[in-house]
């Protein structure tokens, strides 16, 4: 067989190559990348290649972070922003999803309101921030309201689309069994929209943070947005970075919390057989 020899050689070579794709080695590579990034940054600043005034420096960031953690200031700002974001996320997602699902009930109403939904969706919600602050004041409510306005529309559109796409055959089967519209809704439509609705959680938890932070930019006394905004107006870049990295870590943790929620709510979606095709 002419093709056999090269194939065997290729196999042998593949076996010899070092496998980086294990969880521990991946984590080490990732940590290495982060360390390298901060090291280059610090070296750049010390060598005078980049201006510490404009970009800050890792050493400065860490010392500020340590101080702010010690004083409890960072933690309290984080909690405050997190609370606003989660409250906005929960209210917006529930409200939007329920409304989107409810549109399944009447094709007429759904068609009637569709252009309005598209219109509302096409307004950049951030542009509402000044009005929201006028309406709801400079406290917690305005930030939550902004988060709700961002998350609700995403959830609404996703839930409505998923309800429209719910498998017609499953619905027909239920009808042939004698099910009424409510039963079709609760037994076929709602469960089949859950994966789409939960998929919006990932996007919406980010939007929840956006709403909270932008609200704090406009006017506030507390929170990570407040911290970033006031520090940047004082050209205190190290503190700005502390706020930004804290936001990043917060969003990161929230993403994985959503992951756990998804696994818990959709046990039937989980599989241990699905592997990516090797190319």
């Amino acid at each position, binding site marked *: 067989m002419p093709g056999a020899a090269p194939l065997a050689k290729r196999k042998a070579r593949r076996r010899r190559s070092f496998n980086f794709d294990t969880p521990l080695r991946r984590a080490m590579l990732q940590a290495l990348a982060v360390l390298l990034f901060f090291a280059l940054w610090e070296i750049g600043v010390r060598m005078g290649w980049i201006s510490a005034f404009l970009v800050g420096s890792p050493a400065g960031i860490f010392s500020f972070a340590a101080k702010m953690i010690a004083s409890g200031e960072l933690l309290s700002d984080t909690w405050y922003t997190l609370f606003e974001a989660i409250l906005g996320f929960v209210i917006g997602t529930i409200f939007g999803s329920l409304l989107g699902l409810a549109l399944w009930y009447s094709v007429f109403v759904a068609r009637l309101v569709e252009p309005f939904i598209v219109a509302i969706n096409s307004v950049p919600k951030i542009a509402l921030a000044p009005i929201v602050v006028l309406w709801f004041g400079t406290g917690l409510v305005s930030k939550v309201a902004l988060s709700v306005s961002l998350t609700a529309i995403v959830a609404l559109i996703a839930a409505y689309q998923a309800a429209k796409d719910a498998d017609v055959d499953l619905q027909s*089967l*239920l009808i*042939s069994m004698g099910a009424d519209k409510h039963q079709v809704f609760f037994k076929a439509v709602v469960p089949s929209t859950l994966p789409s609705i939960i998929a919006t959680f990932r996007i919406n938890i980010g939007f929840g943070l956006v709403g909270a932070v932008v609200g704090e930019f406009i006017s506030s006394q507390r929170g990570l947005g407040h911290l970033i905004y006031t520090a940047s107006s004082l050209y205190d870049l190290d503190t700005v970075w502390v706020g930004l990295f804290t936001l990043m870590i917060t969003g990161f943790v929230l993403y994985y919390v959503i992951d756990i929620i998804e696994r818990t709510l959709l046990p039937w979606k989980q599989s241990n057989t699905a592997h990516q095709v090797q190319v």
Partner: protein
Amino acid sequence: MQPAPTQLSVRNVRKSFAGKTGEVRVLDDLSFVIKERDFVSIIGPSGCGKTTIFNIIAGLLEPDSGSLHYRGEEIESLRGRVGYMMQKDLLFPWRTVLGNVLLGLETRGVDRVEAEGKAREYLKDFGLAGFENAYPKTLSGGMRQRVALIRTLIMDPDILLLDEPFSALDYQTRLYLEGVLKDAVETYHKTVILVTHDIDEAVALSKRVVVLSGRPARVKIVHDIEIDTPSPIAARSDARFSGYFHALCAELDIQTEKTA
């Protein structure tokens, strides 16, 4: 043996759908009769409207004209009283095997404990004990279709409507499930209407075969199948099997299609 009384009669049913180029007449004055404890296969060219008939009987579609009569009484449809099984198993992916079997009893509002006991019994009878809490995606195609069959039978429907239920399965699984179906129909005394592309399957399972013409569908001829064997596999080795098979092939103009 006296002839069985009529259970369901379909009379002069017409149905058209709006197509791109105007009305498409799918069923044209279609009539046929299903007797008590009958096993009727409906065969016909692809797209001749076999599924449309089922949808009308099951109450998912309304005919343009014509009527349905059940045990002598005119009815709108058999919605809620039929067991509809399709080519896709249509198991609800978010429900476990047990949950899927319970679906129909739940919509009927049967007491949960009673329904669950019944469901477990059926699962045991069909060799699916131990799979109650498995999700459908973890099962093989044959097992999934068996769950769908149980879900259909547990409702104790007046008539089973089987729309090519085994056509997506491999031949061996199909033979096996044909046997399971035949046994179940005997055990639970069910009337069956089976739509199939498979002439072989129609002859092996049915008491009668209705041959439809191409669209718009009319009944071309009804063949009585007088093979009385305990299993569909045994039916295939019956002396008369190939005679019926070729007669039905001829009715479907399969020869002419081949030379065309």
